[in-house]
């Protein structure tokens, strides 16, 4: 008899005829760029989420319920992201949503979530405003924001290059201007002197036209937040013009990545940045994570993969604490939630929904990133600038 009921129950749940009961899966929607410029980032997001979901499901799911991921391609375009998020909330009835990469997409999807009465979390977007002046009660960020990366880098700068003359070069749009402004204020606070700044259009072909300004400013340190192929051009052209001698280049964590490092080659030697994650972190948790990630995807995880992986465990912890997937209860459970991630324990600050975590300073040596310093989470986080809740 019991044998038969078990079979029946299994069949019913398998064919989804069982209705809403405990074995119903928890649905997580993922709106992430699977095509276009940011496809490489979306790929890492997907791998990180899938690995964590597999582990969680194998260990019995969340409160006995399996986790199910539904992917939609946002093409790194806020307008597309909004449509796809709407669809996931209204049609697929997802309980939770993540994956947005472009900061504009995260902000826009946050508004969709508010209207739908659901929660979202970004694992990638850097813009400080997401958990700052444009914060939302429905939006969380589990990765380190630009401000945290800048403070970590500035702390390193004050030790390694005290009172340095710094020149800034950023791409001329929201991200470039905000990263330069953030690092400039962090660097000046620790005694660095700013000797000039220039903003080049996104996708600039030739950075050599700014080299005159750079040379005449005579900086010891150059800070840059260009990304992708722009970094390849900037760095190799600087090498061509002999500008990399006696100059320390530091930058945003998205400036040099596993994607463009091979193309930059020797010109990337010595580049220093502040990040929330590195595959080199020497802890048992991280080694286990890197090995599992590599076994599944044949490539090292980067910060995007690691933070996306960590998010599933944050959501699991919150739902289990709330004993529900209801928005209000989960939001409350997220407040000051502490959970374990590959890079150690993180805390979701209740005041602005920003994760507080240890920050790392990494340097490119011999074509690979190695950790040269770390800064405690509380020293890097900065004040709460969110006034909405």
């Amino acid at each position: 008899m019991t044998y038969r009921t078990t079979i029946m129950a299994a069949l019913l749940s398998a064919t989804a005829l069982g209705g809403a009961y405990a074995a119903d899966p928890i649905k997580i929607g993922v709106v992430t760029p699977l095509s276009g410029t940011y496809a490489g980032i979306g790929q890492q997001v997907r791998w990180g989420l899938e690995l964590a979901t597999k582990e969680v499901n194998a260990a019995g799911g969340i409160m006995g319920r399996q986790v199910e991921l539904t992917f939609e391609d946002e093409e790194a375009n806020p307008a597309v992201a909004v449509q796809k998020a709407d669809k996931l909330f209204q049609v697929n009835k997802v309980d939770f949503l993540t994956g947005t990469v472009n900061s504009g997409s995260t902000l826009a999807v946050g508004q969709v979530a508010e209207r739908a009465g659901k929660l979202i979390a970004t694992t990638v977007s850097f813009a400080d405003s997401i958990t700052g002046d444009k914060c939302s009660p429905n939006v969380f960020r589990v990765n380190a924001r630009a401000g945290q990366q800048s403070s970590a880098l500035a702390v390193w700068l004050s030790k390694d290059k005290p009172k340095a003359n710094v020149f800034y070069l950023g791409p001329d749009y929201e991200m470039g201007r905000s990263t330069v402004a953030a690092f400039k204020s962090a660097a000046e606070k620790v005694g660095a002197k700013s000797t000039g700044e220039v903003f080049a259009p996104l996708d600039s072909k030739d950075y050599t036209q700014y080299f005159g300004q750079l040379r005449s400013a005579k900086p010891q340190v150059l800070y840059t937040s260009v990304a992708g192929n722009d970094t390849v051009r900037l760095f190799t052209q600087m090498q061509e013009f002999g500008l990399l001698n006696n100059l320390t280049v530091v930058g945003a964590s998205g400036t040099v990545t596993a994607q463009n490092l091979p193309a930059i080659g020797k010109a990337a030697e010595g580049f220093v940045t502040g990040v929330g994650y590195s595959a080199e972190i020497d802890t048992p948790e991280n080694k286990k994570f890197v090995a599992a990630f590599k076994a599944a995807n044949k490539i090292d995880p980067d910060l995007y993969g690691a933070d996306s992986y960590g998010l599933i465990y944050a959501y699991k912890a919150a739902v289990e604490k709330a004993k529900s997937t209801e928005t209000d209860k989960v939001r409350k459970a997220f407040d000051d939630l502490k959970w374990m991630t590959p890079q150690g324990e993180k805390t979701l600050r209740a005041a602005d929904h920003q994760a507080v975590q240890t920050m790392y300073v990494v340097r490119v040596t011999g074509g690979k990133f190695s950790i040269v310093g770390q800064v405690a989470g509380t020293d890097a986080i900065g004040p709460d600038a969110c006034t909405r809740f």
Partner: protein
Amino acid sequence: MMTAAIEYFQFVLAPQILIGLVLGVAVILVALGLTIIFGLLDVINMSHGEFYALGAFIALALASIGLPFWLLLLLVPLVMIPVGYIVERGLIQRVFHSGERHVTTLLLTFGLGLVMEDAFRLVFGPNPHKPETPISGAIDVLGVFLPLYRLFLILGGAAVVILVALVVYRTRLGAMVRAAAFDRNMAASLGVPVQHVYAGAFAFGIALAGLAGVMLAPLYSVFPTMGRDFILMAFTVVIVGGMGSIAGVVVAGLLLTQVQAISSLYISPVWSDPIVFGIMVIMLMVRPQGLFGRLGHG
């Protein structure tokens, strides 16, 4: 006062002019094929940027099997010629004779460009590649620092322009091409194989795009969307210089890139594109045929 002016020239103005010159040569190399295809075939080749990228990718693939850069300068254009010939005979020729020639060829080449860009991504992946710079080192030109490869680019670019002009204006082949461009029926009745001349001229333009790809790859790196890089500027140069004019491309190419280089000293570089496109708009309003007339219509 005098020394200040000399220093300003030496450390600010002269490097900027020199850097603008390199960009100018790069733009001219891309625009040259474009203007030949437009002037001779009356086809607006929207996929020209992707053929430029194709040249760079072929060079990348050939370099990876150990072929030296200097051989690629010759080999890649040779590989591009049959590609261009087949594209012209297989695709463009089919829609060329309809009444809406400009629209159909423009849409066809635009679509071809989109397909090629995605094909690059599928075959070579989305990440950038950086070929080794074939000549390292630098020299001082009047106290201005100039990497040797950039010097080579300026001189090599000039040589390519002169060679192309010689072929078009001084050879029997060039005369046939110009005749076919001026009046295809008359040329055909005088025994010029017009079909092959058209396909050949298109292939020649494509080969030039490929050559530009090989020459510029060490400076600007290779990636699937690189075709978009110079194409707007190249179109602008072709329009301002006079569609189909080789001299026009050279003059407009140098002029517009100098405007960009020098203006970016005084105002934010973000304005350099609006300035250049503004010049194009004014040119279209005041002198729509461009600085120089159309090729074959001199």
